[in-house]
């Protein structure tokens, strides 16, 4: 039985200890707890090229 959690709209899960940003869906490991996670605003975190050439 999967332990599934869906984040609220426009939010994703974040691990409270590692601060790892995850997706909006969570299938918990068998010994993991939802208490280890919190919902945060979704952000785009790709580092963009420096197109100024500086």
């Amino acid at each position: 039985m999967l332990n599934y959690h869906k984040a609220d709209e426009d939010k994703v899960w974040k691990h409270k200890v590692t601060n790892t940003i995850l997706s909006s869906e969570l299938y918990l490991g068998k010994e993991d707890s939802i208490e280890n996670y919190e919902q945060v605003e979704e952000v785009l975190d790709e580092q963009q090229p420096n197109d100024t050439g500086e």
Partner: protein
Amino acid sequence: MATNKWLSDLRVLKSNTDTLREHLRDGNVAAYDNDTLQTLINKVPQLAPIESSDKWQPDPLWKFPDPNGSDELKTIREIWDEDTVASSYTYRSICQIIGDYDTIDLKAGLGTTSRTNADTFILSDGTVYENVTTNSLVHTWDKSKDIIDSKGRPMRYVRIYSNSANYYIPHFQLTTIWCIFEMYKGITNYSHNDVPRTPCECLEVYGLNAVSSFAFPYALKKLVFNNGKFSGVVQQQLKFLTEAELNNISVFNISGNSNYGNGFNVHLKTLTLPSNSTNTSFSLDGYSLAYAPAIDILDLSVNTSVTSGVTVKNSYIKKILFPPNATSFTTQQLYTCKELVLPNSITTVSINGVHGTKKIVLSDNIITITAFQTVYELEELIIPFNYNATGTINLSSSTKMKHDSLVNILENLADLTGQTAKTITFGSTNLAKLTDEEKAIATNKNWTLS
């Protein structure tokens, strides 16, 4: 019999269709499994034209009578390789020059006003000057011995021999088109300001220990450096370089944005760094290559001195051959590299903002994922069996991941039962490709799947 013939033809047709489909895909043209042979043929014009070799080649008519007396015509490279005079001297060089002038001051070509060492000169018109100790030696060319190349230009050469180290490169600055030097073994901190300028196309330097500056090679297409501290490069003047072999260099300055827009080596296709005696890391920041076709192949495959990090950023590089001892790999804004296969020496990776890469193979010894995200075109990721690295792989942006690869990742995760759970992020699109049973492969091993 007729049925067998049909079956045989169908097999051939299918084979041809499959081959063409793969060829189109390799050329980044969308080719689908349900495309017919005819629709695939219709897509062929979308393929980029095949580029001709970018290796520098001498003009086919740059060939001189063999100084060793055979009937064959020889390039200066062949004359250099078959030189029977070299054993009598410590230092030598050969310069092919354009026959624009009636005379040449051979000593002035050595780049100094005080050259009293005994130098020997052998010229393509058959003249030999031995042990010349004067500061100046003006020779009048026998133009009837010039060869004519395919562009109608007269060509000659000068061979220089010496037993004393020459602190100046024999450059014959305004006329040299191809030169091979070995004149300064062991010299450090050499200033290379007076290398041959226009129209020099090929410069091969052996035995050099250091280059502190490197100026004015306006037309250079091929550069070979064997040994050297390669720094202070006047980058914007290497506009036409297509091929560079930099052996045993201790400093390599190809990064930096100071010449933004001018495009260091805007045509450079192949960069080979076979060995690097002191640097333990390598960094290539594509901004120095910005807005240019840039390098196709970065070949560090036999470079054993890079024992720490390899960094490739902002690059349109198509293929990276990793040094076998590198322990980390960092990439960001990598645009056209289809495949990254990390050697087992690499324990740490940071991959962020990768476009065009369809397959990544992590090393068997991966320990740390500093970043693994926004790999947009990824279809296949191979992680080692019993994968237990710190850090999180995030495939949310990798929406083209194949189902089988996703399952393979789940199967290779280590069993963390009794340990702190770890996370791996597939993203909603990829999660939708999996059944609950497949997701449970991860969760039953105490991995949280996101």
